[in-house]
């Protein structure tokens, strides 16, 4: 493996396409998604259910459901395209280079194995440590992620932990081998607000400590605002806008991003209607051939129906896929 310099992206995804077989035929779930993230930075993949954000994450770590297939693009880590590697070669990357934290810790953990053994497993597989050494490593990690009385708790099973504690265990496992890139797929969605804040803080501390690149998959705009450096807004399988969170959120250049930001009731006056985006996202089997957002867009006109807009620069290091993004800039 080649080493990378500090300025190279730790993860570089280019033109990723994923097809999904459904009962009614093959649909494109991810359509030409590109993004990259450097160590120490956090990129948020933001979107609503069915926009392809989780599918993108699963393609990157090679855990796609058999019904889905990567049909194009490249996923580069440490200078190699992981999509061209054999399954055995990819498994070597899983843990030391790329790892993932899932939303639902109860299904992600093995229910019939003590948690200490699960957390120690990466050390046995990748580093060939003995059972005893791996257990010590697991206890160290459990201490680090804030599990009280880790030595005793290592013998417990997942169902004996609270939701927040289970999420900590999952995070411990994901960072065990110091990955370059950590993908966090809605890591706090299932948790209570005060516990959410604790988990977010833990992820941030671990990221700083280990200089990881983090890809945060979320539907929560406020989490993005608080936690991410860069954002890629996804809609119907495509990235419709990307840039730094600060720029994109303060001056969106895609009508969908703007609609989402306006729908947040945070600053809304009680009794005043919220500016909602009409309609709902298209079914994957019925994504229109022109702009994916045309059916809900306030700026829509003929060109949007006939021609799919591509991502184009709307400023330094930001872009949007809209024929008329300049009109948003003027408001």
């Amino acid at each position: 493996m080649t080493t990378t310099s500090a300025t190279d992206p730790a993860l570089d995804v280019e033109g990723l396409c994923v097809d999904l077989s459904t009962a009614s035929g093959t649909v494109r779930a991810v359509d030409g998604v590109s993004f990259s993230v450097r160590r120490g930075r956090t990129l948020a993949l933001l979107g609503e259910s069915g926009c392809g954000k989780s599918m993108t994450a699963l393609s990157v770590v090679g855990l796609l459901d058999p019904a889905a297939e990567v049909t194009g693009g490249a996923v580069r880590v440490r200078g190699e395209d992981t999509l061209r590697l054999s399954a055995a070669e990819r498994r070597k990357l899983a843990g030391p280079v790329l790892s993932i934290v899932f939303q639902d810790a109860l299904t992600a953990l093995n229910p019939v194995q003590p948690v200490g053994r699960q957390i120690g497993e990466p050390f046995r597989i990748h580093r060939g440590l003995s059972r005893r050494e791996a257990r010590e490593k697991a206890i160290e990690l459990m201490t680090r992620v804030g599990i009280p009385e880790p030595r005793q708790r290592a013998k417990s099973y997942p169902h004996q932990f609270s939701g927040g504690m289970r999420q900590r265990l999952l995070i411990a496992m994901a960072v065990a081998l110091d990955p370059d890139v950590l993908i966090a797929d809605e890591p706090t969605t299932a948790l209570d607000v005060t516990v959410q804040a604790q988990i977010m803080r833990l992820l941030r501390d671990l990221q700083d400590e280990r200089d990881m690149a983090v890809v945060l998959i979320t539907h929560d705009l406020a989490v993005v605002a608080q936690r991410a450096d860069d954002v890629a807004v996804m809609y119907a399988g495509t990235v419709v806008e990307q840039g730094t969170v600060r720029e994109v959120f303060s001056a969106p250049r895609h009508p969908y991003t703007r609609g989402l930001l306006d729908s947040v009731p945070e600053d809304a006056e009680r009794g005043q209607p919220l500016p909602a985006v009409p309609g709902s996202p298209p079914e994957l089997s019925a994504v229109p051939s022109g702009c994916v957002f045309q059916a809900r867009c306030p700026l829509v006109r003929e060109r949007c129906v006939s021609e799919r807009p591509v991502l184009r620069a709307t400023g330094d290091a930001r872009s949007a896929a809209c024929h008329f993004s300049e009109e948003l800039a003027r408001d």
Partner: protein
Amino acid sequence: MTESRTTTAAPGAPAGENPPLLEVSGVTKSFGGGRRRLTALDGVDVRLGRGETLGLVGESGCGKSTLARVLLGLERPDAGTVRYDGVDPFALRGKELLNWRRRVQMVFQDPFASLNARMSAADLISEPWRTHPDVVPDAKAREKRIRELLSLVGLRDGDAHRYPNEFSGGQRQRIGIARALALDPDLIVCDEPVSALDLSVQAQVLNVLSELQSRLGVAYVFISHDLSVVRYIADRVTVMYLGKVIEHGETEDVFDRPQHPYTAALMSAAPVLDASRAAHDQEIQLKGEIPSPFDIPSGCRFRTRCWRAQDTCATEAPPLVVRPSEGAGDDHTALCHFPLEARSAWA
């Protein structure tokens, strides 16, 4: 709400002579017995006027869903009273009970699980009339009423004969709302009605709910973990923790000047979009997680996670602190030995 009002120390002081639409006082509800006894509600007071919205906030296990079941008459409290217009629903029988049930309806969280997939939208909306035929007795009038209800929630006539799988999540939630409205209720208990919906659709459903309130004067108990949604929709907010109401007041008072440390922590923990606002508030990180409801801490139940806790908090039950509202309306109350003085105390 009347303009001049007498201030009393009781939480949710009466605003007029007429009994409020809903008045719950001292409601306690336990499940199980012996060491496995779980007290889900412990002396809960709630008050709600016609056409108003009460936001019910708290984390899992705080008792908000049990309270919802009590309000719907599905769970009989062990102690305390529930009154609708002065009437105790748990004392009603037969026809009277049936008539009362018509007045309190519910909208569920999950629009995918709460609608029967084999019934069309029209069937779903008209199903409540099977139990309550008097509401719309005439078959022709029913057709018309179904169309009215569909249009009230922003659906089209043609949607009447479609089935749930043909609708998106937001549209299904609209059907759930239309179904709740079919009996002309005075109160709708909404249990996390928008949390299963995508953000862009959430706003649509919130708009439907507020529009219905101003047109029909229906009252809502709005249960949600999303503070920005509660702030937008509720007139008053009740915060619960482990079965107790720990803070109550007008929405502005509670959000701008929280008295209870738990409320302040909840607000600080919820991420906000506006980065400038986030920068002002120092984040309060609570210790640990909610204790098991089987083993509630002595004294103040929040003390195990509270950064202001002192010895008294473990030995004595916290007093009710009453502060008059900054605007008009309910007093701002909290259960705490060391309430926060003003925003500056924790920001």
